[in-house]
């Protein structure tokens, strides 16, 4: 039996399984939190009972982290060049060399309570792209639970823009459907199935010619996005075994976002840029594109979990017995940085957004469980991916805490005997020096960030530009409080079985 036809193909959590499957899945849900907390407890324990051993571990860890930072920054730098190159290429002209008239882009824009202005900007950005609009099918997917205002936004957009595109469909996702977790996955899946029947089937559009772009509603497509995407779709050896990942720039409102939000948003972009150079470690994230045929074969996005954007990749990966990958486009789409009416609300929202993103740890039990069940995937593939994924979630939640908070613990807990050692005196000096070297990479971050900034608004002075450079000194703080801690929070919830719901990031524009 194909893996996609098994009862656990679209499992959301352990409670949906029975018997030994449930026990195994639950153990795998516990694993990420257990590993992260285990590491932190181990460092505290060692600092108290074996401070010298803890100091050795911290020194080794500091060096590992510094080298990892340099290693990753080489990827970042290369991707920066690649994005600049890809932005300079005329993909529409490149497409002229290929037969592409049959390709239809189905763009799904699921939204909740976002305002007219924000939705309109995204729809308008589609119109401003270089791709033939008659080959675009736009699906505006609202939620019934968002109330009549959301549907009014949908109607207004439809009235104003429907005729501009080849196809346009406004859908309403009914509320309170049993077995669904209220969130983007359920809405997108419901909308795309309606689009299949109403747009594709009625117009006899072959599924194999359709590329779905599942966009967050604040996504602004750059001019050549669909041309670039189509070119890659047409040139990749097996396009139905590939998802396409653009680079998310959180730029739409960056000049109006508070400093913490800017740093966190920029760091997210950098991480995605790094991953673009390591496609074997890349899963789809946020706004992405997938061949419709591949999606249809597996029944679209899962409706019973939070991280549907990355889960869809793992669904496809397992369904194709490991023969499925993400093709990094190294071409940007831009979205909103987190902005709330007040600074503290922004801080809260940034934290909650990161907690939701890092709740992607719920994919780890799904992947590992799938590896146990799907015997067709080669062992070496399973092994490599398991190591990468486990290390990824573990390092996300622990590394910044070990580096910036626990590095000094042996000195605090190690007792007087340890504090007499040269090792004890050198530990903070060495840690500080390694950190300083690692932080030099922030200069590169600042340079890259500046090159992708939209033009400074007239009401912003030069100091605003200066602040965009200076802000990177906050990275040691943001990496802990808006990276590791929400990550640990999310993993702890998963570990304790206190499953998270889909928290919709409120989108405010100043």
């Amino acid at each position, binding site marked *: 039996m194909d893996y996609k036809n098994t009862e656990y193909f679209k499992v959301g959590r352990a409670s949906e399984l029975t018997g030994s499957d449930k026990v195994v899945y639950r153990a795998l849900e516990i694993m990420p939190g257990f590993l992260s907390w285990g590491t932190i407890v181990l460092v505290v324990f060692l600092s108290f009972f074996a401070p010298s051993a803890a*100091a*050795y571990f911290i*020194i*080794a860890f500091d*060096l*590992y982290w510094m*080298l*990892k930072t*340099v*290693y990753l920054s*080489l*990827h970042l730098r*290369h*991707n920066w*060049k*690649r994005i600049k*190159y*890809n932005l300079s290429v005329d993909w529409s002209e490149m497409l002229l060399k290929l037969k592409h008239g049959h390709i239809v882009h189905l763009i799904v824009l699921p939204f909740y309570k976002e305002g007219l202005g924000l939705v309109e900007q995204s729809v308008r950005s589609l119109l401003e792209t270089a791709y033939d609009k008659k080959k675009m099918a736009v699906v505006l997917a609202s939620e019934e639970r968002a109330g009549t205002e959301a549907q009014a936004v949908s109607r207004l957009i439809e009235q104003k823009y429907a005729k501009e595109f080849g196809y346009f469909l406004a859908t309403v996702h009914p509320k309170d459907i049993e077995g669904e977790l209220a969130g983007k996955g359920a809405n997108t899946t419901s909308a795309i199935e309606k689009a299949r029947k109403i747009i594709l089937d009625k117009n006899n559009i072959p599924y194999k010619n359709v590329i779905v772009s599942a966009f967050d509603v604040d996504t602004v497509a750059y001019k050549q996005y669909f041309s670039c995407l189509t070119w890659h779709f047409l040139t990749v050896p097996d396009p139905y075994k590939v998802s396409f990942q653009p680079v998310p720039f959180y730029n739409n409102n960056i000049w109006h976002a508070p400093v913490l939000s800017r740093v966190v948003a920029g760091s997210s972009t950098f991480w995605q840029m790094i991953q*673009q*150079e*390591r*496609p074997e470690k890349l899963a789809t994230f946020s706004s992405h594109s997938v061949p419709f045929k591949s999606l249809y074969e597996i029944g679209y996005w899962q409706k019973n979990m939070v991280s549907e954007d990355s889960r869809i990749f793992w669904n496809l990966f397992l369904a194709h017995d490991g023969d499925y990958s993400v093709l*990094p486009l*190294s071409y940007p789409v831009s979205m909103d940085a987190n902005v709330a009416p007040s600074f503290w609300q922004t801080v809260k929202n940034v934290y909650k957004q990161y907690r939701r993103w890092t709740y992607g740890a719920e994919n780890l039990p799904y992947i590992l469980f799938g590896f146990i069940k799907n015997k067709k995937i080669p062992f070496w593939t399973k092994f490599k991916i398991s190591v990468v994924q486990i290390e990824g979630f573990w390092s996300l939640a622990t590394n910044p805490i070990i580096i910036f908070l626990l590095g000094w613990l042996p000195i605090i807990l190690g*007792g*007087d*005997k340890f504090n*007499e*050692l*040269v*090792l*004890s*005196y*050198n*530990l903070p*000096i*060495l840690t500080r020096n390694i950190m300083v070297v690692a932080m030099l990479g922030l200069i590169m971050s600042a340079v890259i960030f500046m090159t992708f900034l939209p033009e400074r608004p007239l009401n912003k002075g030069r100091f605003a530009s200066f602040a965009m450079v200076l802000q990177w000194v906050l990275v040691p703080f943001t990496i802990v409080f808006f990276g590791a801690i929400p990550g640990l929070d999310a993993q702890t919830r998963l570990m304790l079985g206190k499953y998270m719901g889909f928290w919709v990031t409120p989108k405010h524009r100043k």
Partner: protein
Amino acid sequence: MLPLSRNKRRLYLIFFAIIFIIGTPFFIFNAKGYKLNLHDFFNVSKTGGLYISTDQSRIDISVNGEIVRKTGIIQKSIFVQNLKPGVYQINISKEGLQSWNKSLRVFPEIVTEARPFLIKSEPVLTEIPRLLIGDSSALSSTSRNVSKKNSEYDLINVLFLPPGLKSVSVKTATTSPYTKMLGDVLVKNSAGKLHVLWKGEKDSTPNYFCENACKLEIIVNTVSKVLSFDFFPGRNDLLILSVEDGIFVSEIDDRSSQNVQKVVSGFGYDFRIKDGKEIYLKKGLKIYSVTL
């Protein structure tokens, strides 16, 4: 433009892995005090360090006659490392202050700590007058000077009264001719000789009790008999002593000869410490507050 090739990435990875494999033991041994002597056939030797903590800025700290650092406004302590095991002569000096000298033994992988003290070459003695002179013109038509008792003097003077004669309740009368304890440091005056004992946990024994091994008792060496003593304000490793010919501050640390610095020399002085902070001297009927 192509993404980073697998080969290039693998090369980076191998390069950084090699650095990690070589670097980790190097950094660990370096942090422990192991030094590679390039001029001595790559011989590896164990070193130790000195940690000198002061509470003042712009102090010259010399090790074996060489100034190694001047303390700053923020960094008032220094850590000197890569010292071969052996005895080092430490000198701490600043213009206008009495200098502090100590010979300290440095052990491999261990940091030898010292906490010097520096008091003014000429401490400032400010007399507290017994009587305050006031102007009575407000009360009578002719202006004349009127003397009245200085309450501050009276308050301090009470500290100098023998215990049985004190009629005013004073927060602390801190001196005693016999025993005194601060934290876990107990000092006993036995026939004019001070014996200092550590009463706390063995693991927490202050560094000045330990050199090769920790001892239980330190004797404070003085030329003449100690008449009275107390802990120096804010320190449990320093004592202020009254001897026949003056008032002095001595450290307890006897890892080499104890540093003794003069507060005032001369006969007939006594001292008291008020509230664990302020030092007062008395000679005859005169009382002075002291700035060190």
